[in-house]
């Protein structure tokens, strides 16, 4: 971190991201919003109107692209909380400039997660039946169901992430409320809850953050392992694997870190002022994490295949054959291995870390590779279930392709709106990073 930046400069730079808006921003936002409506909401309305029949789902492949994207976005959501929670507990200095961005990503990724649950369901208007609440029917939810686990885990995760994100933002909002005008001033004043920055408040804030971190870190592990139990608790070959919980968690973190890298790179291009705060130093640190996670992921992928082979039941073998040896999927598998195991290793070269290749290309490949991982697990295992009479090849329809793409546009447009309202870099943490002004330098 550049120690010559003054506090005032930092404040102005970061509030500048919020207030200085050019025509390009509006152009891109309009484009994104229009795409989101036309790719996501209109097809979704069509699907709700005419039923799940418009998808390519079929017996026995009942879990298709929607569920793939559901898991994928849960995964993307993971890095944000991990960066902010785990690195907060260990007081790692490089988290400060990037944590807020990562948390924001988590927040909106979780938004998409709930969206995909709704898209996936046959009768989304009855969604509230999965919530345990006292009702006149006197019937509750089934606590042995992994879907109920999901409801609890993702509900907790969403709540905690929102709390963590907005809690960390209180000092910044208070600081912004002094310079802002109009509706912003009212919003910031309301959301800063009377924060003044007294020593007592700072002290309690640090302690509370520590507790949040301590709670959220195990939550990160639990959420994706719960999601993995949606699969691992079944008997389907390719799903029923004990390695799934760590496998999913690692994969989630890998894709999440790649997502953070890509998001930071794009933000830096869009707002050059961010280059002052997110520097080569941060890329160094995050990419090391990507390398480590990629190595763990590679090991677990190997184990997933090997445990299937060692089980040596005809169903497992059939499933592995389908996944590894049949034409489209074998290429996808190769692409997945290439982009998740091979490409991230290039980060070992220090020069690559902060190059265009390292900032954009590798993260994009990792994100695609992680999507493929979920794709190769979810519908593929169902295509070759037990009874050969029912074997069925899954081919998604345009609705299933369109909705996830539209969801991505929706994610981007929400993110763009967010950065115009809330500071995307934590102002006080950046100031902390710059150093506290002392007369006697030591």
């Amino acid at each position, binding site marked *: 971190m550049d120690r010559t930046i003054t506090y005032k400069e930092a404040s102005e730079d970061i509030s500048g991201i919020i207030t200085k808006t050019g025509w390009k921003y509006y152009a891109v936002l309009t484009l994104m919003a229009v795409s989101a409506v036309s790719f996501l909401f209109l097809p979704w309305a069509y699907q709700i109107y005419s039923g799940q029949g418009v998808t390519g789902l079929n017996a026995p492949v009942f879990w298709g692209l929607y569920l793939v994207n559901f898991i994928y976005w849960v995964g993307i959501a993971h890095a944000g909380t991990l960066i902010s929670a785990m690195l907060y507990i260990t007081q790692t200095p490089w988290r400060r400039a990037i944590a807020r961005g990562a948390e924001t990503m988590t927040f909106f990724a979780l938004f998409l997660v709930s969206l995909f649950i709704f898209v996936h369901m046959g009768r989304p208007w009855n969604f509230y039946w999965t919530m345990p609440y006292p009702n*006149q*029917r*006197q*019937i509750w939810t089934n606590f042995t169901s992994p879907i109920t686990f999901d409801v609890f885990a993702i509900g907790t995760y969403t709540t905690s992430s929102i709390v963590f994100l907005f809690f960390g933002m209180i000092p910044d909002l208070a600081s912004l409320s002094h310079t802002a005008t109009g509706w912003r001033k009212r919003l910031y004043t309301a959301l800063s809850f009377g924060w003044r920055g007294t020593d007592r408040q700072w002290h309690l804030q640090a302690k509370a953050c520590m507790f949040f971190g301590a709670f959220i870190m195990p939550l990160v592990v639990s959420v994706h392992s719960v999601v993995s139990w949606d699969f691992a608790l079944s008997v389907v070959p390719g799903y029923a694997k004990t390695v799934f919980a760590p496998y999913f968690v690692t994969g989630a973190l890998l894709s999440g870190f790649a997502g953070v890298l890509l998001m930071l790179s794009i933000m830096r291009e869009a707002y050059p002022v961010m280059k002052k705060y997110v520097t080569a130093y941060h890329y160094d640190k995050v990419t090391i994490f990507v390398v480590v996670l990629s190595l763990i992921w590679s090991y677990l992928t190997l184990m997933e295949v090997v445990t299937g082979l060692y089980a040596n039941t005809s169903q497992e073998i059939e499933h592995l054959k389908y996944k590894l040896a049949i034409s489209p999927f074998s290429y996808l598998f190769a692409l997945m291995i290439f982009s998740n195991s091979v490409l991230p290793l290039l980060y070992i070269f220090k020069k690559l870390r902060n190059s265009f290749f390292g900032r954009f290309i590798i993260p994009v490949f990792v994100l695609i590779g992680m999507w493929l991982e979920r794709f190769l697990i979810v519908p593929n295992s169902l295509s070759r279930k037990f009874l050969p009479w029912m074997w069925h090849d899954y081919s998604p329809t345009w609705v299933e392709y369109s909705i996830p793409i539209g969801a991505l546009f929706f994610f981007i447009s929400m993110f763009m709106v967010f950065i115009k309202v809330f500071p995307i870099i934590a102002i006080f943490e950046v100031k902390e990073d710059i150093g506290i002004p002392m007369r006697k330098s030591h």
Partner: protein
Amino acid sequence: MKYFIAYVSVAVITFALGYKAYGLYFSDLSPVQPIPFSHKIHAGTNKIPCMYCHIYAEKSRHAGVPNVKRCMGCHSIIKTDSPLIQKLASYWEKKEPIPWVKVYNLPDHVYFPHKRHVKAGVPCQRCHGDVANMDRITREVVPFGLPYGMVSPLKMGWCIECHNNEAQKYIGTPVKNGTDCWTCHK
């Protein structure tokens, strides 16, 4: 903040009242019948037992409405000069059933046998209210001149409540498998 709370509470109260009002006034709880048949006269004043007309109640799932012949059985002699009875007679002459409007409607996915309940000794009034004092069959309860609630809400929790607790009054135990979904759903 004060305004916010005020707005929210007004919205919530309006919604609750509206919901209640919708249930009471806009869903048809006391439909107009083609012939203004009075249960008060038949079941109240003249004390005709329910099963005399609703003959299927103890034999089948449906209580059933009496056929026109049963009406005419009495009304070919009694009060033949009344215009309403003449309307009834016109149905009889045309050989047409009277298009009675069903008041107690259960959704398609509910299996409700009248037989089991009548045989268990549940009085008709338990669910249908004090029919003997109703001119027109209604599901509303009107305690102080104000429609206040429903005779029976016909909701799942209401059924379960009786199966679990109140049934003991009639058969001595809770209903066997009374909370099994397929006891009532189909």
